[in-house]
């Protein structure tokens, strides 16, 4: 049985959403799989308790000017990862806005995870402490994770948590009637090579 879910990555521009997506879905054997055309859309197939789960990861544009456009990306999401940069207070404030919007605009109860990203940067540069982030996450019913897009080991637990919760929430039943997109990209779990930063910087 296959279950397919939509997971959207939200957060301010340059907090590392695309890098997280790329690092987490980095392929070990690319030639074995159908290539997806987007760097901002990836699928990851997980096997949890003998059940196959496909997470479709949707990247979003984080620029403030496009904020109002984000609704169409997240409104029917099964889960959302809200990403902020631990060295950027504004990005944390934006996450709080996103949470409010999600609660307001998404039907059902999407699984929420908050990713405090760029934890690989020196502690001296961090402006949001783990405690602050964790406390906020608990307040809004989200799971908190400290991540670095350079280290897939910090990403795996987050996505695994989401997948398990989705599985639990949907009672092991898929949202797509046992049909998987023919373009699904199967990805092997990988060690942690250097992630592409994504983005063109332009």
């Amino acid at each position, binding site marked *: 049985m296959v279950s397919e*879910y939509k997971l959207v990555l939200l957060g301010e521009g340059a907090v590392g*959403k695309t890098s997280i997506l790329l690092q987490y879905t980095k392929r070990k054997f690319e030639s074995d799989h159908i290539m997806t055309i*987007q760097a901002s859309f990836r699928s990851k197939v997980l096997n949890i308790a003998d059940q196959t789960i496909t997470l479709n990861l949707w990247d979003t544009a984080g620029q403030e000017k496009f904020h109002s456009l984000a609704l169409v990306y997240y409104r*029917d999401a099964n889960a959302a990862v809200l990403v902020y940069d631990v060295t950027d207070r504004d990005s944390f404030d934006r996450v709080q806005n996103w949470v409010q919007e999600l609660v307001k605009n998404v039907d059902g109860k999407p699984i929420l995870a908050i990713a405090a990203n760029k934890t690989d940067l020196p502690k001296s540069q961090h402006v949001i402490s783990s405690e602050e982030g964790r406390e906020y996450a608990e307040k809004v019913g989200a799971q908190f994770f400290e991540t670095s897009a350079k280290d897939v080991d910090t990403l795996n637990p987050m996505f695994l948590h989401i997948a398990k919760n989705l599985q639990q929430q949907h009672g092991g039943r898929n949202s797509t009637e046992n049909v998987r997109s023919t*373009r699904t990209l199967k990805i092997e779990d990988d060690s942690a090579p250097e992630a592409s930063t*994504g983005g063109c910087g*332009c």
Partner: protein
Amino acid sequence: MSNDAVHDDPLSAANDEFTMNPFIHVLRSPEYLPELPKWIESSENAAVLVPLSSSIGNIDYDAVDFVKTHVVFFNPQLSWQFATANGLLGEISNGKARLRTKTPQIVTQRSIMALDWPQDPPSPRSEVAVMRESRLVFEGLGTISVFLLDLPLVFQGCSWEKEARPTMTMRRRQAKKIRVDASVSDLKDLLSAMPAGIGRTPLFKEDVADDSYLLSTEALTDRDAFPLRQRLVQRLADHRAGLVGDRVRAFTFNLTATPSTSRKQRVADVKNFIAAQLASMSGPYFTEDENTVALDRAGLEAQVAVETFSLVYPVRGDEDILEDRKIAHRTLLLDWVRPEHFDIRCWDKFPKALLRTAGTHLRMLHREHTPAAKLSRLMAASKAILEAFEAADEGAVGADAFLPVFLMVFIHVNPPRVMSDISYIQAIHDPDRMRGEAGYVFTHLTTAANFVMAIKASQLTIDPDVFAVNIREAGVRHAADSGTPAVSQWFMDNIGLDDHAVAIDTAPAVLMGSGPTRPPTPTRVPVCDAATQSLDPIRQAVSRVFGTGRPTMKFVGDTVDSLSVRAAGELLQEYQQLAQFYRAVTQGKW
């Protein structure tokens, strides 16, 4: 083909259909198509009716339904008798040649359905039998007549009955009938010229009162959908899939037979039907692997979408059309937007060819007939933009970088019918598939539409006062073409588009002979005394409009009887010119 073989040894012929009747095999098996002229030549007793509106570019020779919709044999002298490639009704005979069935078959409701017959089939004038094409036999001697009609063989509401009182609409349609008598060698020339000539023929779709009657000159599309449909058709032979096939036929038949329901209702009907069938295809009859089921589902959707397209896609008077015009106008008002307004610093590093490809795909979106084909265009547009980033050494890009470029291309190519397309895809496409990549690129499209419809100065890197001035000036600049989905001059000058994507055609390409406007298979060819049709009004209009500088219209004054098949190519070109002229006139440009 050898007609003698039919007479001399019918049993042998039955055992070797190919030898006996290769002409039919041509129509059934695409690999024989190149041999068609040769076999026609050897048969000397066939009549071929080819609707000019069929675009060879739109015909997938691999598709099983090619023969079903695109070629009909009939006898010009006894035109009420004809045969379709799917079956034979009555017989064709002019005293010299005869096309008949070998063994009549009882007409059952099911076989009527297969032939797209009306619920109440018209009474035939002769003995009628419905036969599979393999039972067709040519006999005798005769000449070949080729009839080119610039109308689909079949029209909603058009009576094909000889005794029917022609309506005004019918008369107008008849005026466009052209008859071309051809010798065998002429026919060969014609057939070889078809792909180039017929694909460029405009189609007058007169029951649509606005300018959407006109086809562009571009070859028709939906290539992506054909393999899916073909596959489904093949699968329908499978007993497990046959049930679904029956339902599809019955559903499309019923929908076309009751066109009086509102479009909204038809959309809902189609959506519900597809959903119900998709659900049933997951049942015990479909136990194959996931990919097989997924392909079946896609094929089913494509088949139903094509069959019901013009009953479901927004038409004049629908709210979506107004929205199309509104967004086209608003997009025009943004033609001054430049890459720096989106902070796209690497625009100049993008290969123009890739941006051109992206723009062309976006521009061509509305020409597709199935949600899958439209989404495929969108995917191709996205891919071209991503490749542009790659070529500019920007590597893999996220949404932060991608979206502004997509918006930039969208704004400048001003895709026609975009709101209709969004509405259509949302209405018909399997929602489950929208969670995947197709859904992702579709979201880019809806985002772009939302962006244009509600843009504020703060969404661009620009001074708000300058923004307001630019919008105002663009309004003055485009006062005359409000609602026209024109490509921006800046994009044309700097990037360009493929020629076929530039033309402003508000109608999707018309699928010849298929789709919901296809009425039940006609029982007769349209009755029309073509020689009595006067082309004077057209000639007068051309003179009035073009004055001394009018284009060459060498056939305008001709009667149908004075035409020869050798003139077909030029004639088609003239039709195209006339169509463009007609469009210009209806758009008030003269």
